[in-house]
């Protein structure tokens, strides 16, 4: 081991924590994960489709689990051109809250 290694040692636990948070957020909301998220996704898409055309992969739905409640995050990227009468806005962020339990497998 060189001297540089000795002094340049970075803590690895924060990396572990960040990687876990990322992968678990993905897995909890992912395909095998929750029926609830899939259902919400389909219904939200249907409602939006009535008014604007959005691409399916521009809608992201995440369910994040907390101690007493979970947060449902919905990100919808609206196309600038496809927006109807009110002038097009930049990609809208619609945070919503749902007091549902964890995304069950």
């Amino acid at each position, binding site marked *: 081991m060189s001297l540089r290694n000795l002094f340049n040692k*970075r*803590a*690895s*636990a*924060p990396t*572990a*924590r960040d*990687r*876990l*948070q990322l*992968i*678990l957020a993905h*897995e*909890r909301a992912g395909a095998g*994960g929750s029926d609830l998220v899939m259902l919400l996704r389909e219904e939200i898409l249907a409602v939006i489709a009535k008014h604007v055309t959005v691409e399916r992969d521009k809608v992201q739905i995440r369910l994040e*689990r*907390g*101690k007493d409640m979970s947060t449902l995050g919905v990100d919808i990227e609206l196309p600038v051109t496809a927006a109807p009468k009110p002038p097009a806005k930049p990609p809208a962020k619609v945070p919503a809250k749902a007091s549902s*339990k*964890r*995304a*069950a*497998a």
Partner: protein
Amino acid sequence: MAKVLVVTSGKGGVGKTTTTAALGAALAQAGQSVAVVDFDVGLRNLDLVMGAERRVVYDLINVVNGDAKLNQALIRDKRLENLSLLPASQTRDKDALTDEGVAKVMDELREKFDWVICDSPAGIERGATLAMRHADLAVVVTNPEVSSVRDSDRIIGLLDSKTLKAERGEIMEKHLILTRYDPARADRGDMLKVDDVLEILSIPLLAIIPESLEVLRASNVGCPVTMNNPLSAPARAYIDAVRRLKGDPVPMTVPSDKKSLLNKLFTRRAA
């Protein structure tokens, strides 16, 4: 009314069997009547950790199939008379367990004991889901390590969906036991901290079991760690866990075997 507790984790080798034996023994030491049940069909080990491997005659599958009565299969602990073991079968495979058969055995166990502790096999297959199916509460055993935490997250999802309690729309009570924790390494930033794991898994903490030689020592001699050396750090952590399970508010600590310098200087070898 008996409580059925499942000890589960997803990942193997994190301390489910050690925890089952330690919690079972600590509950029995506190005066409760306890049955520990090995669900790891084909890879049984609870008998070995409890020191009862040479006394197994009948097992869970014999009882499920009606080849033996529950009383014939239950092995009473030689050290604690209110602690019994129902071993798994070593020769059969887990498909021999039927839903109805397991339900019947669990009902019978509920009538006989205050606590029924089910040692789940690793994985998320049938053996693991059967072990958790009848539980009233769950202890999720996790190491402060990425693969263990990820698998625990998966198991928590199953506890909330595949158990009878979840199917009835009730909330499954879940507790975390963090095993093999090393506070010094966590302080140096080389190990996930307790709070990191709690934040990620979002279930209440039941105990922190420090990494300790005593755990291996206890399994070497086939004695639950709470009986083998009740004053050791892991034993104290498990005994506190049991007090919390019984509703006693015990402040959370990481027990330590290490002595301070003063202690080292002034005490000759404690027994």
